């Protein structure tokens, strides 16, 4: 059983929902990322999605675009991101780490080499925004062979046939994108998400995490009620941007944002 599967199963057994924060590696500075990852865990994260910065993040809104730019100013490379996970693992061997990003940095590194070093560093899953399963013939088996979970996106526009086939290519969880738009842009419609996620649950046994549009404890609880986990990105990254000059204040701000979400999710169980 993969680390991701283990965590999600144990949460389910307790009737709890996963809290999955996203931050961009290297933002605001590569030296701070590992520390911020530990902060996220201390504040209640079950799984971390660690963004790999890319020069052309086409599926992201301005908040994460700027995070990529801040990280790239310091030359944050995919190799460095993997090395950060390795450092993180020195103190934390429980929290699953999913690398989330775009395909080209992986292609440039070489898929086999990337899969090997990611596995060795303690990475658990890979989510590639611009890699649908149809194009993953070459890459996905390299992940599967190493027990790295391949996590794919589902969207409001995904047809039933594709939900089935994407789920077959996925392991760990599937990531449901709650609205049509880029990260940090739109407003989540809880009723629509509830009915879509219920429908996805009919088509796959995999846990369903929901991301896009979760900004506070209230939306986290509302989405947690109808899914297996909530993914929180832009609001955290925006917090990083606003507190980038003060590392201690930044950690406090992230904690203040995440902890109420954790509590709201856990209150659903009781």
């Amino acid at each position, binding site marked *: 059983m993969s680390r991701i599967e283990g965590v999600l199963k144990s949460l389910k057994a307790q009737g709890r929902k996963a809290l999955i924060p996203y931050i961009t590696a290297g933002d605001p500075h590569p030296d701070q990322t590992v520390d911020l990852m530990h902060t996220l865990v201390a504040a209640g994260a079950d799984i971390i999605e660690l963004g790999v910065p890319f020069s052309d993040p086409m599926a992201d809104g301005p908040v994460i675009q700027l995070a990529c730019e801040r990280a790239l100013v310091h030359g944050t490379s995919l190799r460095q991101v993997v090395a950060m996970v390795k450092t993180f693992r020195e103190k934390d061997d429980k929290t699953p780490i999913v690398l989330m990003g775009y*395909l*080209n940095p992986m292609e440039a590194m070489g898929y086999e080499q990337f899969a090997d070093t990611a596995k060795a560093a303690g990475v658990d899953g890979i989510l590639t925004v611009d890699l*649908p399963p149809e194009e993953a013939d070459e890459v996905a088996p390299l992940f599967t062979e190493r027990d790295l979970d391949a996590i794919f996106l589902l969207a409001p526009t995904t047809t039933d046939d594709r939900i089935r086939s994407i789920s077959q290519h996925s392991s760990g969880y599937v990531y449901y994108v709650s609205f049509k738009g880029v990260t940090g842009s739109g407003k989540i419609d809880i009723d629509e998400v509830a009915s879509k996620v219920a429908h996805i649950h009919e088509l796959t046994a995999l846990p369903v995490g929901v991301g896009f549009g979760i900004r506070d404890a209230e939306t986290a609880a509302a989405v947690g009620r109808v899914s297996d986990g909530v993914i929180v990105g832009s609001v955290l990254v925006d917090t990083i941007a606003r507190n980038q000059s003060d590392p201690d204040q930044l950690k406090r701000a992230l904690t203040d944002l995440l902890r109420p979400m954790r509590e709201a999710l856990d209150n659903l169980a009781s």
Partner: protein
Amino acid sequence: MKLTEEMLSGFPDARGHFGAYGGRFVSETLFDSLMTLEKEYKRLKNDPDFQASFDKDLAHYVGRPSPLYLAERLTRETGGAQIWLKREDLNHTGAHKVNNTIGQALLASFLGKKRIIAETGAGQHGVATATVCARLGLECHVFMGAEDVQRQSLNVYRMKLLGATVHAVQSGTKTLKDAMNDAMRDWVANVDDTFYIIGTVAGPHPYPLLVRDFQSVIGRETRQQCLSQAGKLPDALVACVGGGSNAIGMFYPFLTDESVQMYGVEAGGLGIETGQHAAPLSAGRPGVLHGNRTYLMEDENGQIASTHSVSAGLDYPGVGPEHSWLKDIGRAHYVSVTDDEALDGFRKLTRVEGIMPALETAHAVAYAIKLAATMDKDQVVVINVSGRGDKDIQTIAKLDGIEM
């Protein structure tokens, strides 16, 4: 490799691949829309009503066929092969871009989409899109890098006059690639009612296919005109390559004619050796950007490199996937000329033939002159004059130290 019609029908394959290139590398939200577009295009491609509308618009709105013109004085001064010019600059709106926007706008109408988005570099595709939108009464949004908005202000104003909203893109390098990023972002958010008219043979499948099909009228006409006017097939075709739509439009109908050599001319900028250029086929390597795998300019970590070219329309770090495939199989040659050589080409064609080419086209002119000089007098070189240079007057004046 000798290509046959039968082989060509397999490129792209069912999933949009040209060998190792192309494909559909997009976020999930867009996938269904691309599938629908592909399905509808396949149906309409063989629909006589659709084709008749397209042909009629090309004839009476664009003004096709565009002439194939023997540049006698340029030929004489060059002292080699005959140089013929395919006059896409004479099309309505002044460039080849309109062939494609007519086709895609027609597709949008058949699909019932009322809102159009487009990216643009030099502004020619933006103008061509705004033009067809004005004619069909469609809402039009054009994304253009902030740097390009500056250097192509004439085209920006043309688009506004035509009723389009021009969005100056401030992210990244503020050029064509960033305009395409923002167009994709808009599309994801508005996928239900919006049709994205991509201006070049790049992007996710089926765009490279349908843009090629719409632009192939250039090569089909050239083939016929060359046979009747020069009495033979061309020996060499020369076209500039940014994304590569005018080049593929010219090359494609000749791919099975083994004797016809093809030269795609990339923007060498300040020189390939300086790294300040926009020549992925000459100096890049394969990667994935904007929905397709193709040759890219990138750093060792897979971050897309910034590009430089005097011409905004060529200032792009990628290239259409079919060109990547044609390069690898050796069917077409890809070369580059520098900013300075292109500017010389611009002045030469202007002064010797009274035809002022776009700075993009000037790259093809510069290379063709060098090429023709090495060839025999009975040989034929055809340059695709993809656009006219009016939009570049301010750039040229500035280089000449003239304030306008």
